[in-house]
């Protein structure tokens, strides 16, 4: 409501503003600065163009060699895995958030805690855990073997990477949706029923539109980290799925700081534009929020 509070509101925000300038704005400026300079820190757009034009040869499925735009292919692959993971998170997270928000208060608290517990554990350890679960001789295959079922090969496939991403980022999808649903005015749901909606109608015509801001922030919070992840694909994909995050890391380790910065910068711009578009359309449809 009061978007334009002034004066008095600034003081308590001061430490936060300082923090965000120091640890968010300054690093971003450095990224941009490195992206547009060469080793001698002279201005150049070389790094940016390299992202779009660099080529390499890969073996296509029919065995022939093909020349492709290296980084565009990598970006496309990252985008594909990230979108699939985000979509799965949404598909699982939305109904679960809906059920949670309707549960008893005590149950809600327990479920929220259960969802958050994995987040207290180190991200690397979680990924390692999935390695032991998914390995050819891992837990899943042991269990399958116990029932006399043929082992399945998961580790090193796209499926494994997607499982890892979904597991790691699922809380970021469910929590914003859940929190918006939990504080939704139950009177609105009753009003919808009163005016002729069955349960599905209430979901479709009231709950879903009102939960959209939560869905948007869930999608943003899952899509962005999963598009730029590198560790999950290295560990669960056996390094076979080189993603944009891997590319940044690789260039950084190879000490190509300027090109690494350029990739990061392009990724950031693309994501910002996407978010801007989404925001524009949601604010147009749901002006009240």
């Amino acid at each position, binding site marked *: 409501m009061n978007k334009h509070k002034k004066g008095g509101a600034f003081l308590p925000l001061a430490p936060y503003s300082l923090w965000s300038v120091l640890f968010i704005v300054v690093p971003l400026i450095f990224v941009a600065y490195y992206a547009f300079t060469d080793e001698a820190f002279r201005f150049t757009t070389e790094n940016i163009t390299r992202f779009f034009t660099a080529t390499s040869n890969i073996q296509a499925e029919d065995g022939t060699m093909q020349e492709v735009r290296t980084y565009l292919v990598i970006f496309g692959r990252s985008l594909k895995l990230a979108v699939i993971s985000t979509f799965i998170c949404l598909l699982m997270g939305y109904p679960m958030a809906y059920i949670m928000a309707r549960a008893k208060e005590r149950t809600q608290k327990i479920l929220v805690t259960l969802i958050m517990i994995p987040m207290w554990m180190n991200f690397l350890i979680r990924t390692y855990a999935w390695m032991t679960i998914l390995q050819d001789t891992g837990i899943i295959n042991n269990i399958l073997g116990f029932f006399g079922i043929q082992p399945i090969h998961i580790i090193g496939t796209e499926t494994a990477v997607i499982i890892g991403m979904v597991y790691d980022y699922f809380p970021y999808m469910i929590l914003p949706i859940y929190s918006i649903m939990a504080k939704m005015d139950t009177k*609105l749901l009753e009003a919808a029923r*009163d005016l002729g909606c069955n349960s599905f109608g209430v979901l479709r015509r009231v709950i879903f539109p009102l939960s959209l801001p939560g869905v948007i922030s869930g999608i943003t919070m899952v899509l962005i980290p999963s598009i730029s992840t590198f560790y999950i694909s290295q560990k669960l994909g056996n390094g076979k799925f080189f993603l944009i995050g891997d590319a940044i890391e690789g260039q950084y380790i190879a000490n190509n700081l300027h090109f690494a910065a350029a990739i990061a910068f392009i990724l950031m711009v693309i994501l910002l534009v996407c978010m801007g578009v989404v925001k524009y359309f949601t604010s147009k449809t749901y002006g009240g929020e």
Partner: protein
Amino acid sequence: MKKIIELKNISKAFDGEGVLNDISLYINDNEFITLLGPSGCGKTTLLRMIGGFEHPDKGDILFLGERINDVPPHKRHVNTVFQKYALFPHLNVFENVAFPLRECKVPKDEINKKVNEILGLVMLGNFAGRSVTSLSGGQQQRVAIARALISHPRVLLLDEPLGALDLKLRKDMQQELKKIQQSTGITFVFVTHDQEEALSMSDTIVVLNEGKIQQIGTPADIYNEPDNAFVADFIGESNIIDGVMLENYKVSFSGHTFECLDKGFAANEPVDVVVRPEDVDIVAPEKGMLSGTVTQVTFMGVHNEIIVDIGGFKWMIQTTDSVNVDEHIGISLDPDAIHIMKKSKYSGMFGDYSSYSNELDELADAGGEE
């Protein structure tokens, strides 16, 4: 008259706390019926039961003679105007009102026609495209009413719909609601804790307290012939005095025997006697049936509200005569100024103005409800 809704021996408890206790009541088609009672007496719960949002622990709800206990809200021909309107914030005024029509897949042209028509009826013709969050309380109220009326329910439930409005707007809306009810012929079940509102709008009033029906009747019945001390006190001001019914048409209280219009009590049965403050005539002390000393005079505009100590019991009297504090006055009561009630569990709890203060009363009124 046709009974549209019947409640039969409804009881309901929340967490072991009895909220409604053996409520039986019928509602006639086309009437304006009001559930009146203090905050927490179970009015909302009863209304929600008719709407289908609560289920009775015991008892039946009938709609045109058919049991509807298990019929879900969207299948009842009953719509609700919620206490805080519950408008959909993601829809504009037009779409809020069109909401029920879209659910039944009414053709577009017809939706346009109907919505514009009803927005006209509630005087929001120019507001169709506005966001509901940008409306004032009174305007939101009208949208809620239009939305509830547009699908022509048989019964409209209104839960303290005027509670959030200021006095002036409240009075206007009272008139408007009554007009809408009369022109549409829809049965209105109206909930309020404001007795004046109930008296001025209703065909029938149901007085509730502590989850029990205290009295059902027309506004005049309820005001003139309250069944017990609770009703007498809740509806307007009352002096409620301990008395003894000597025989038919003869009651004794405050050491004097009065003629009255009531009969059918046992000889010498203890009763509660109600005298409304405006029904007391002030006369010279020697001419009075009773006499006492004025302890307080408050100028109320048209009349004075005075407190008189008569034999230790403090009466409230409204008079246009001018009297002064410490003045000794007599009072005289016509037979029709006296109303006799059977003793109830509320006897002795109400109707004595010993600790009365106007200011306190107003404070209590203002703070009593959200």
